[in-house]
């Protein structure tokens, strides 16, 4: 009775686990569900996954792995060394510094061993940043690290229903020059272009500008919240209605920043016309250097500016960037400046594998060569050596071609060579 064993093994754990959480009312509906699934009629129930989870099947699973490796190879070629943080960390460390923004998206579980709360990573940047500030604290700066892995989030978003997806990215830690940001941006566009993604554009934001302006204008906490609300939605009407509380002159400045959203050269011209002073002017300095460096090194890359965007940039402390592709849904990746928990200047980039894969126009054509049973093993080894994917028949059949088609092969080995199969029905 394997099933029974399984239940017996699991239930003491459940009892233990829930007694830790002081939840004695919890009985074991789990056991009932497991018994029901014994019944074949419950196939659909077995197939059902939690919301936002999916099985990735052939050939997509292999394709995803290939693309992920191609990106990592490109990052490696620029001297970014790979690190591999664990899936789980102590919550306290995971949500420190740049990790704090992911607090609401992080699954927690109690570690029965240490009796401490653990978090399942919802973003890899905080982990890599932690590695840089702890184990690699003596490694020479600037430190270039890369990573690839799966992350898990409590909720999907409107555009990304997935709660688990792959992240591939880099962090450049210990450099506070616009050259570092430029390097990261062009590294990403280069790597994405190499995958065949076209019509890309980069949106640059400066999430520190609005707070700097608010400081210069001496706005109260309440006014800042109302302003943030209007600016997040780029709601010009809402913004105009704030004139009574924050002053018409100040509203005009924000309205101009809002209207400046768009192509970089237009946005910069309108930013210039504002003649910003004080800390707001300082914030813009790095942005200007990055824009001019990119326009020089990659003049054909469309750049847009958004000077008021804040959402998604909660832990960032300078210029941030988002990669879009025309016609694609959502962002290919995001990144930007932040400060590590050890107060080091850093910038980084994360590509989202789900959107990247959707944006790649062509899937490789898969060719599989069927080797009828009793073909000498040596023959198929030679064919694999020159790049064939071979699928061996395990028993003799009356119609090898039909068998080859049944197993989704595109070619069959006959008369001493590989011949293509006629198209399948």
């Amino acid at each position, binding site marked *: 009775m394997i099933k029974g064993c399984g239940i017996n093994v699991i239930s003491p754990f459940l009892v233990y686990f829930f007694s830790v959480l002081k939840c004695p009312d919890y009985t074991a509906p789990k056991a009932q569900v497991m018994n029901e699934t014994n019944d074949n009629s419950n196939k659909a129930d077995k197939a059902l996954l939690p919301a936002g989870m999916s099985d990735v099947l052939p050939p997509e699973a292999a394709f995803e792995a290939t693309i992920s490796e191609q990106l990592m190879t490109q990052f490696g070629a620029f001297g970014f060394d790979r690190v591999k943080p664990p899936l789980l960390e102590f919550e306290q460390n995971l949500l420190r510094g740049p990790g704090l923004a992911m607090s609401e998206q992080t699954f927690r579980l109690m570690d029965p061993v240490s009796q401490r709360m653990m978090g399942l990573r919802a973003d890899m940047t905080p982990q890599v940043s932690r590695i840089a500030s702890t184990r690699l604290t003596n490694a020479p700066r600037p430190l270039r690290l890369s990573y690839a892995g799966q992350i898990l989030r409590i909720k999907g978003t409107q555009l990304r229903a997935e709660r688990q997806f792959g992240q591939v990215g880099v962090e450049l830690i210990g450099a506070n020059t616009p050259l570092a940001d430029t390097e990261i941006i062009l590294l990403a566009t280069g790597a994405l272009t190499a995958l065949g993604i076209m019509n890309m554009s980069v949106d640059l934001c400066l999430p520190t500008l609005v707070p700097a302006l608010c400081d210069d204008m001496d706005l109260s906490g309440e006014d800042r919240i109302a302003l943030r609300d209007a600016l997040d939605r780029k709601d*010009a*009407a809402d913004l105009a209605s704030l004139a009574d509380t924050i002053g018409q002159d100040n509203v005009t400045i924000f309205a101009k920043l809002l209207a400046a959203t*768009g192509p970089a050269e237009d946005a910069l011209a309108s930013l210039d016309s504002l003649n910003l002073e004080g800390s707001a002017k300082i914030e813009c300095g790095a942005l200007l250097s990055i824009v001019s460096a990119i326009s020089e090194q990659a003049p054909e890359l469309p750049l847009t500016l958004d000077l008021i965007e804040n959402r998604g940039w909660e832990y960032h402390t300078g210029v941030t960037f988002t990669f879009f592709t025309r016609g694609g849904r959502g962002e290919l990746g995001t990144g930007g400046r932040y400060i590590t928990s050890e107060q080091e200047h850093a910038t980084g980039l994360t590509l989202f594998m789900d959107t990247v894969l959707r944006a790649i126009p062509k899937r490789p054509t898969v060719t599989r060569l069927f080797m009828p049973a009793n073909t000498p093993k040596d023959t198929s080894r030679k064919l694999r050596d020159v790049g064939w994917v071979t699928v061996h028949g395990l028993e003799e059949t009356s119609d090898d071609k039909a068998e080859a088609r049944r197993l989704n092969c595109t070619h069959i080995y006959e008369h001493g060579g590989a011949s293509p199969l006629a198209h399948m029905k």
Partner: protein
Amino acid sequence: MSSSTNDKLVLALPKGRILGEVMPLVRHAGIEPEAAFDDESSRQLRFTTNHDNIDIIRVRSFDVATFVAFGAAHIGVCGNDVLMEFDYPEIYAPLDMNIGHCRISVAEPAGMVGGDDPAKWSSIRVATKYPGITAKYFAARGVQAECIKLNGAMELAPSLGLCRRIVDLVSSGATMKANGLVEIEVLAEITSRLAINRAAWKTRSAEINGWIARFSDAVEAFRKAA
């Protein structure tokens, strides 16, 4: 991914009452839909225009926001009641169209007014088409709102005992009055907004900015004329 369907700019307009107010602005901005658009008997949902690269779709106001949020339409016109209800992070609303003026309010039966102290509420039951706005509004006051979602005829709910309060759009207030209800609090003033899909604005910014400017001119021209 065919480039032709992807490259067309799709403008989503709301069916019904607001459409009559929107079309003069759309035409002033230089967009003229094909003849079928004005043909009441036509079953068509998507219409070409005098611009090769712009199509118009006509959907329910709530769906305008959804189409725009997912990037199925790039530009749309809908009330900020709808934008507030969904609060989609993928939608920007850079222009007030100055049409469709009304407000979203709490109302209760005339007999209840005065005998009720809102400061004592811990939870209330409300019939509304806007459960999101309602729950958020009352939560901000420390009151838990149990929302009963209705799609219309909210005014019937109190008299039939479904619940005592409703949250609904009010323009003249005549429907409320006719049903013995009194507007006790305004949650927000409503107008129609130009809604832009975030990714579209980022990837086709020159084009989209051009249309925002044209709609903005149209709104200004009508404001002056009024």
